């Protein structure tokens, strides 16, 4: 068993060194889960890739592969990039975790960066953004903007990342509007315009006049535009083509600074395995322009909230907070620790329905 592994890695490492000698440019690879044209998640990662190219010019060559299925195919795609001499590979979806680790074991000299995962190796880092900070701003605006007091939420998969977003948005909507109610639809996809449009329409029919989405396409924006007076927020990307209404603001993933910094570290030989989780402060999470459809005072409050999170004086998960079942979670003034947030598998008090299991 062990011997088998050793032999395989030896064979692969051999192939790698011969490829690495042939080129002196730093080669950076990107594995995308969706098409670049999704207008959301993958689109923003690709913007990060282009920023790396713009920053380093001829010193760096980037390669990418889009729409890579999670699972066995991902392992081949990543191996292929390592074989072709990539020095640094970003795998940009949670589902690539096991594949990234499997390939990283075979290529100890290649650096890997896995987005939104939690397993590391000496040559595997993880990185993610504190999107829940952006969700707090959204929740605040949503709570103020809703007239029906029903906020629809298109959730993707019931994983901590998504549950955190729901909780954060709900807490801040509830703060400014005690009557607010969240209706959540689980779409079980990150990107499927048809399914997302269906979910949006269903939520609107149930009376929602604000729609938050944790899926990547602009289909919910289009559905809201058609319905008329429904407010939306851009997800992952600005989705500015739907501004000023229905899209009144957005959460923008900004990977460029991180990608540039990590590429620089590889060039300098200072790269180390790290676990990065950055928010609004360092600029990994951006809040898109709040449009004029939002009243000026609400906009000012939202921006103040954003500024407080950026400077670190306010944490979106600050007590007193209870869990959905009524048990105590955070005492007055207590702030949630990262460990709990990273594994969050419960709703806060007031949310209805169950997390699918």
């Amino acid at each position, binding site marked *: *068993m062990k011997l*088998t592994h050793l*032999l*395989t890695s030896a*064979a*692969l490492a051999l*192939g790698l060194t011969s*490829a690495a000698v042939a080129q002196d440019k730093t080669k950076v*690879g990107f594995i995308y889960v969706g*098409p*670049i044209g999704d207008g959301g998640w993958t689109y923003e990662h690709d913007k990060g890739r282009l920023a790396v190219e713009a920053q380093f010019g001829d010193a760096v060559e980037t*390669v*990418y*592969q*889009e*729409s890579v*299925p*999670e*699972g*066995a*195919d991902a*392992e*081949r*795609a990543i*191996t*292929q*990039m390592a*074989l*072709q001499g990539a020095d640094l590979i970003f795998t940009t979806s*949670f*589902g690539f975790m*096991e594949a990234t680790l*499997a390939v990283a074991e075979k290529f100890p000299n290649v650096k890997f960066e896995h987005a939104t995962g*939690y397993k590391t190796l000496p040559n595997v880092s993880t990185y993610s953004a504190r999107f829940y900070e952006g969700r707090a701003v959204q929740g605040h605006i949503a709570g103020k903007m809703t007239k029906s007091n029903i906020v629809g939420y298109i959730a993707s*998969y*019931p*994983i*901590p990342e998504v549950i955190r977003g729901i909780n954060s948005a709900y807490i801040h909507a509830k703060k400014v509007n005690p009557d607010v109610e969240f209706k959540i639809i689980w779409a*079980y996809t990150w990107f499927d315009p048809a399914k997302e449009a269906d979910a949006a329409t269903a939520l609107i029919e149930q009376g929602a006049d604000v729609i938050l989405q944790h899926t990547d396409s602009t289909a919910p924006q289009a559905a809201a535009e058609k319905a008329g007076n429904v407010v939306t927020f851009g997800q992952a990307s600005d989705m500015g083509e739907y501004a000023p209404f229905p899209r009144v603001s957005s959460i923008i993933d900004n990977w460029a600074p991180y990608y540039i910094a990590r590429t620089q570290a590889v060039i300098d030989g200072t790269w180390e395995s790290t676990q990065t989780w950055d928010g609004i402060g360092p600029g990994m999470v951006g809040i898109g322009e709040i449009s004029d459809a939002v009243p000026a005072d609400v906009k000012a409050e939202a921006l103040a909230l954003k500024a407080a999170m950026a400077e670190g004086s306010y944490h979106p998960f600050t007590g007193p907070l209870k869990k959905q079942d009524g048990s105590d979670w955070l005492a007055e003034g207590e702030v949630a620790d990262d460990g709990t947030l*990273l*594994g*969050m*598998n419960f709703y806060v008090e007031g949310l209805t329905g169950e997390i*699918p*299991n």
Partner: protein
Amino acid sequence: MLKLEKRPQPSQLWTWATPVLAVLITMVAGGALFAALGQDPVAAISTIFWQPLFGEFAFYYRPQLLIKGAPLVLIAIGLSLGFRAGIWNIGAEGQYIVGALAGAGVALAFYPAESALIFPLMVLAGAVGGWAWGMIPAVLKLRFGTNEILVSLMLVYVAEQLLAAMALGLMKNPEGRGFPGSRNLRQYDSAHNAELITGTGMHWGVVAALIAVIFAYVLLSRHLLGYHIRLAGQAPRAARFAGVRPARLVLFCLGTSGALAGLAGLFEVAGPAGQVSIDFNVGYGFTAIIVAFLGRLHPFGILLAGLLMALTYIGGELAQSNMGLPAAAIQLFQGMLLFFLLAVDLLTNYRIRLATKEVA
């Protein structure tokens, strides 16, 4: 002017020549597509067809061909039996999922015990799981006269929901910090469907696919049941006179193709994929339909077609990451293959003649 004339008998020559012709036309049309995208067409085509086999890193890609091709062949062999008899199982993807779930379920139930019996039990569970999922459309068809195409297809979506529920619930890794997905079976020696010989890509799924090819060949050419299958597809009325019992054929074909698809799922989840995750299925069950027809529903044809399909996948990925071709262009290229195959199929049943002007 050209004129089509129906052949009295399907042409033997063209039956075998059309797949080759389709591949060639696909290369030409695909080359034109790549050229329109601003790439060197010859380089693109050679990246797809040549690099994985004889390129610098062929030592890695050749085994990958087997890994990618084995589930396609295994499923397509099962499907071809039914297709020959006019029994249309479109839901192999669902049977593949259920087989994987059943097999992985056995492994996870025994974790962390180590025993040489676990893997054979998983194989059995995988086959039974797929078989059972295939029996649903079979029984519904016999009992209520439902259409097996619709039922088996709809059951794919049921299976996908079941998969998501398992990845998020019952089979979720208790040490996975609340993230979806089961334990990694590759790190569980008794359950791991490992390479039998290092560096060859040869795992039990590949062995099973080869055995299935041989069995299917013997069945179809030497066995009475195989004769009945062929007869039922070609002349249903005559088949009835010859003593073929359609109900038995339906049960056999849907059951066998389900079991083989279930096996493919089990070998995948215990080997290359490693874990039950929400996105475990990547469409092998649907691609296998193409493979079955590309291989002319003949066992050896399917073997070649499966490998060819695997080659376009792996070469296509190479072309994406090396040449920056968009994923959609590669999918289009694969779609062309089926399109041209169906188009030139015309030549099997029709003859093209130059129409002479008729004199009044």
